[in-house]
């Protein structure tokens, strides 16, 4: 298979019309150089359920850019079937997953599977996932995560969710979808803009900025209940929320004392504390993975650059130097790198800094990149960008090799936020 290939996963749940269901479709535009060849055979049992699960697993692995699917020749094997390792090795598969689907007495489905290393001829383990019939794709994502972790040594992110804003027909929709763009649901509909959504570390809430009061106000919104409350609505603008890693606080930007400055506030809106005191703009705060420091954007040096400051304030240290516009800093969850948007020759591009060496690499080839967001395993970065005048999302690996594009048919997608690991 060529390095650049195209695959469009058609919406699975596109049963009802209407843009409230504006479904993301995913296109892969770049893949890793050394992809692991793997076979996912069909699972005996309920054929429809088997198809949902195995196609989800195959699509996940292929989309990651790290795996090459080896044809399974329509073969179905359960998790206890003997495996002819030499044969599969001969067909080019380094690994093989087999499994079965069974319906339990209470009507739920149980997916069992086992993963094999055909090179060594050994089992790499397996698991059983129980789910109700409408959540089969979730079981597929869990299996794909298991395979991904066993074969790459990193945790998979197929079971995670993403949030983003769709602008369509004069409305702004804050949507939540599975990491493959499926199963989209609208958490908030507004005629006024919604920006800067960020997931709470427990994955149950989003903080965001809504303009429904004719000014930017910060909300925290519980997804399951739909309940939301105002965290910051001070005189002036309230924006750019960033969760502390323990989920107790938010770093926010308020203009109540003049220009935009950093503050921290408890998630219930109490305990406001000022963090920065500069004579210019300080914005876009993001806690470091250990919670000890905050990365932010400031024009204190004359142009917008990334700085770092203690979580309770103190002296700020400049982090970016190349160029005259470096904004939207996002430290990776593993603490090793920093993603940000850098303007170079008029193009706004995603850049990644290795925090140990301070080396910076531009990793996107688009030119209107915004709002980067790391996957919880730090491997991929989701950004908003523009293709053909339309807002789309793009997922780029932190080394720039793997690229996927997510778009909706009738509207602009923007302001992506990758959620935490499945809990």
């Amino acid at each position: 298979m060529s390095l650049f290939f195209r695959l469009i996963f058609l919406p699975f749940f596109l049963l009802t019309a209407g843009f409230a269901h504006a479904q993301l479709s995913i296109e892969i535009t770049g893949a890793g150089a050394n992809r692991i060849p793997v076979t996912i055979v069909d699972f005996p049992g309920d054929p429809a359920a088997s198809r949902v699960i195995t196609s989800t697993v195959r699509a996940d692995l292929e989309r990651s850019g790290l795996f090459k699917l080896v044809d399974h020749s329509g073969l179905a094997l359960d998790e206890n079937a003997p495996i002819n390792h030499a044969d599969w090795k001969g067909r080019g598969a380094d690994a093989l997953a087999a499994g079965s689907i069974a319906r339990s007495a209470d009507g739920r489905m149980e997916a069992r599977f086992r993963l094999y290393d055909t090179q060594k001829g050994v089992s790499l383990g397996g698991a059983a996932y129980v789910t109700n019939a409408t959540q089969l794709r979730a079981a597929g994502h869990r299996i794909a995560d298991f395979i991904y972790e066993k074969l790459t040594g990193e945790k998979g992110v197929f079971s995670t969710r993403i949030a983003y804003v769709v602008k369509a027909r004069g409305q702004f929709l804050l949507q939540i979808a599975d990491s493959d763009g499926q199963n989209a649901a609208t958490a908030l509909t507004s005629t006024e803009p919604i920006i800067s959504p960020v997931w709470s570390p427990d994955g149950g809430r989003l903080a965001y900025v809504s303009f429904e009061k004719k000014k930017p106000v910060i909300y925290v919104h519980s997804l399951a209940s739909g309940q939301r409350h105002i965290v910051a609505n001070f005189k002036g603008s309230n924006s750019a929320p960033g969760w502390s890693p323990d989920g107790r606080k938010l770093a926010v930007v308020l203009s109540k004392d003049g220009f935009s400055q950093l503050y921290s506030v408890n998630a219930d809106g109490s305990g406001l504390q000022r963090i920065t005191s500069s004579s210019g703009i300080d914005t876009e705060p993001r806690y470091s993975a250990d919670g000890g420091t905050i990365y932010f954007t400031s024009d204190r040096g004359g142009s917008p650059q990334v700085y770092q400051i203690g979580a309770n304030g103190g002296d700020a240290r400049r982090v970016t130097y190349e160029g005259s516009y470096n904004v939207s800093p996002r430290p990776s969850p593993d603490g090793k790198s920093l993603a940000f948007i850098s303007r170079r020759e008029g193009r706004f591009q995603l850049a990644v800094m290795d925090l140990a060496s301070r080396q910076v690499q531009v990793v996107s080839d688009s030119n209107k990149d915004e709002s980067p967001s790391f996957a919880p395993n730090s491997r991929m970065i989701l950004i908003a960008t523009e293709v053909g005048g339309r807002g789309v999302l793009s997922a780029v690996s932190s080394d720039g090799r793997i690229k996927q594009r997510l778009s909706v048919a009738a509207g602009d997608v923007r302001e992506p936020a990758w959620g935490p690991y499945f809990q």
Partner: protein
Amino acid sequence: MKKLLIPALLAALLVGCSTTPLPEDSNGAPVESRSGSSSTGVAPVTAGGLDSSGLPRELTDPKSKLSQRSIYFDLDSYEVKGDYKDLVAAHAKYLVANKGFKVLLQGNTDERGSREYNLALGQKRAEAVKRSLTLLGVSEGQIESVSLGEEKPKNPGHDEAAWSENRRADILYKAADGRGEF
């Protein structure tokens, strides 16, 4: 009992599946409802809007200077230009004479660059207009300066003509009885 069950059901839906058999969860959850929420654990919410009306004619009559509410800025500039001296003075005079009225100053930017950084730049424009008004005697309590950043472009285009229209601060009024534009 039923009340207690609902959050538990939602939590179960959100979790979806687990490695070992789950505790008893929702049987027969709908695959897809019109609101699209039940299979995903996301409840849909619609944000409310605000009315605007009921201001004196001198603020809205196109023949009145006070109906001019927009102040445009140069690229990368956050200073109120001399061209707008009379306009700002007319609004200052009205606000000094009508202390029950309040204004919301909304700063705006063009679309290029970070949304949040642009929000902070729009704030600088709103602050510049606020400073001009307070220097002319308007009470701070009558003014709130906020930013819409690049989010509410007056001109949705993507060229310099559109951008120059969007580098702007707008003045919105509210009367003492609470009626008005914000």
